[in-house]
């Protein structure tokens, strides 16, 4: 057994220092499109290329609804007037801001959060990224976040996938089984808007159609750092990003 201990010690610390410091290694995030100011005539062709209609034009810019972006790169590859591309990973945003003034869990959960994950029909990519948050590079335990398999102990519910017809009942049951206070974090484009699967006979078109969602992490799939940002947002340790790129000053958030 000692050889495993030695191996572990030899390997050293691989964990990122986020949220203490920004993570600058290459390849940690695919980035998101950044809209474009003054696109001119090339706007319409670019907008029409988006398969999930997450682009629209308003005044002199192209606006983005990140909840729909599925990382197909059609707006940046092989097209005139390609959109700007933002690297970075702090993508999570609040969803419910209308009626509830505290969408996030209080400070009490800041360093002790129990997470329940329910798979509402996610493809393997979101699941794989979620599994990484427990692995050496990201290690959410150092932040005080833990995964639990039972809703009775959970404070926050992570849902990935468009919530298929067969899983609707289970997702709602899991949410109902959690004791208050509880929050919901929708992970990925599918969970926020149905992704490429949209609304159909087999897919609800996103978690907000079933239960109230508090925080959303866009991306297809969102990288582990974005998911961690979402969790930190949920416990008020990090500020939110906008789920829709407005670029303009009023920064209106759509729910």
């Amino acid at each position, binding site marked *: 057994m000692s050889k495993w201990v030695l191996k572990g010690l030899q390997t050293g610390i691989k964990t990122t220092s986020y949220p203490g410091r920004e993570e600058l290694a290459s390849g940690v995030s695919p980035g998101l499109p950044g809209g474009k100011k003054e696109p001119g005539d090339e706007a319409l062709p670019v907008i029409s290329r988006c398969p999930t209609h997450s682009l629209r034009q308003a005044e002199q810019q192209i606006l983005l609804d990140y909840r729909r972006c599925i990382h197909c790169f059609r707006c940046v590859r092989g097209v005139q007037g390609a959109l700007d591309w933002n690297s970075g990973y702090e993508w999570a945003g609040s969803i419910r801001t209308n009626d509830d003034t505290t969408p996030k869990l209080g400070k009490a959960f800041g360093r002790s959060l129990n997470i329940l994950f329910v798979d509402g*029909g996610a493809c*393997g990519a979101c*699941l794989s990224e*979620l599994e990484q948050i427990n692995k050496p590079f990201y290690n959410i335990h150092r932040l005080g976040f833990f995964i639990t*398999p039972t809703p009775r102990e959970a404070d926050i519910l992570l849902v990935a996938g468009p919530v298929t017809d067969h899983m609707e009942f289970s997702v709602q049951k*899991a949410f109902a089984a959690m004791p208050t206070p509880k929050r919901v974090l929708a992970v990925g484009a599918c969970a926020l808007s149905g992704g490429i*699967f949209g609304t*159909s*006979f087999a897919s609800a078109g996103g978690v907000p159609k079933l239960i109230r969602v508090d925080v959303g992490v866009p991306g297809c799939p969102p990288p582990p750092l974005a998911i961690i940002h979402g969790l930190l947002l949920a416990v008020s340790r990090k500020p939110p990003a906008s789920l829709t790129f407005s670029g303009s000053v009023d920064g209106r958030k759509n729910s």
Partner: protein
Amino acid sequence: MERLLHDTVSLNNLSEEIALRWPEQVRVNPDLQNGLCRMECEASVLTEVCSWLFSKMGYSFASLIVEEEPAEFSLRYIFYGDLENGQVHILYRILKTKATVPSISHFVHAADWHEREAEDLFGLVFEDHPRLGDFVLHEEWPEGVNPMRTDFDASKLYVHREVNPYWRPVRIVQAPGAFMMPIGPIYSDFAESAHFLLETVGEDVIRTIPRFFYKYRGVEKIAEGRTIDEVLLLAERFSGTSAFAHSLAFCQAVEEISRVEVPPRAGALRIFLAELERLRHHIASIAGICGSTALAVATSQASILEEELLRLCCALTGHRYLFGLNTPGGVVMDFSNEALRKLEDTIQGLFKKLEELKKMLSFSSSFLDRLEEVGTVSLESGVSYGLVGPIARASGITRDLRRVLPYSGYEKVEFIIPCEQEGDGYARLRILFSEAKQSANIISQVASSLPPGPILPPPFAVPRGAALGWAEAPKGATFHWVRTAEDGRVVRYRVTPPSFTNWHGFHLAAEDFAFQDFPIIMATFGLSNAESDR
């Protein structure tokens, strides 16, 4: 050990043989240039022909494709063999007014789940099939509603439900005091949604009865009427961890329909990226196996390698899971040869660490104890269930699509297909390590001999037609059938992912075992419900 075929037969002989045996009932139409033999069969001999192909001629069953036409259903049975045996497509038509289709699963057991899926989604009844119903659509969907039929409106939620308070799951064990331990659909930390009923009389689990399709997103149905470009996105995203392989199979189907030639550089890049995905996928599976046995340091070691590979993929291509790279005809992005060689060096460095991990694991007796002789799948069962991929290779079945139906230039690449005989968890782990080694090897070969040239052919239109595309995905053989209309939109899209084939055989490994071995058997199989349920 290669599986020996019963007779040395080649495709020409095959058509002659069939014409001899069933002169009236089967119309053979060989297409030797494409290594294909099409035939149309009548109801009375369908089962015989399929069973003869499977048991006597040694063909493997790939897929059953059901297509609905105005007045009839056409069922296409796809078989494939080794290189010289090519593929056999058997077409069987049945009028919509007729009641039943003969079931071939008594003889070709690999077709079992295909027939059950067709029954649930199309409403076809297969004669003598002992277990129809409650497969894709669960018990609260009413009878007679079949989503894949053309008259079903797939764009809206289907709200009507029928709850039967007396519904019970199928039980196989009949012993006093037997009961079923339910697992899922929400169970472990990050497990995919699936339901297992473990039948037991208290000590060992005697039989596992899985219930899947909790993640059914109706990919085949929502693809109908969409453009090729949109369906390409679906092909990538229904199973994100094998996105490149599935998009490759889809693109090859479209290329076949359009009769377009993929430029050699694109082909070589496709091999490079596919093997990169395979390497990452296998390392993730190894991490999963170590995690299931709770060997924490080994899990961390494998996870570190996995994350490093994900970052390399992202740095090279812009996406960690290689989304958005394939397109019909070639690839979308080109990479400089130096960049690829540098990447290849890094990968060799990673691979050395993987080898170290393998050596350390092979000396950890407590780890091996939990894998050896656990979840054994025998060769005979594997053949009759038509298992594919690393799981099949661990039980002695060495059919690999890259060798028997080479695509994208694999015939020019040298690699071994590893094979083990025991069929237990440790054999599957060893196969994963060996295949990772082969992938690293192929990556080196390709990186050092990348042909120059374009990565896309000249623009082309997709005509009306239908073709089968395939690829050896990390989990095994996958087959994509695409039929297009005149305007280039997809009319029928049928995916047979390797997880679907292999989940069928999961219960063979999960029989008569101790309950605590269940997560380990699951991890050594390393299957994906997202891929299987589509």
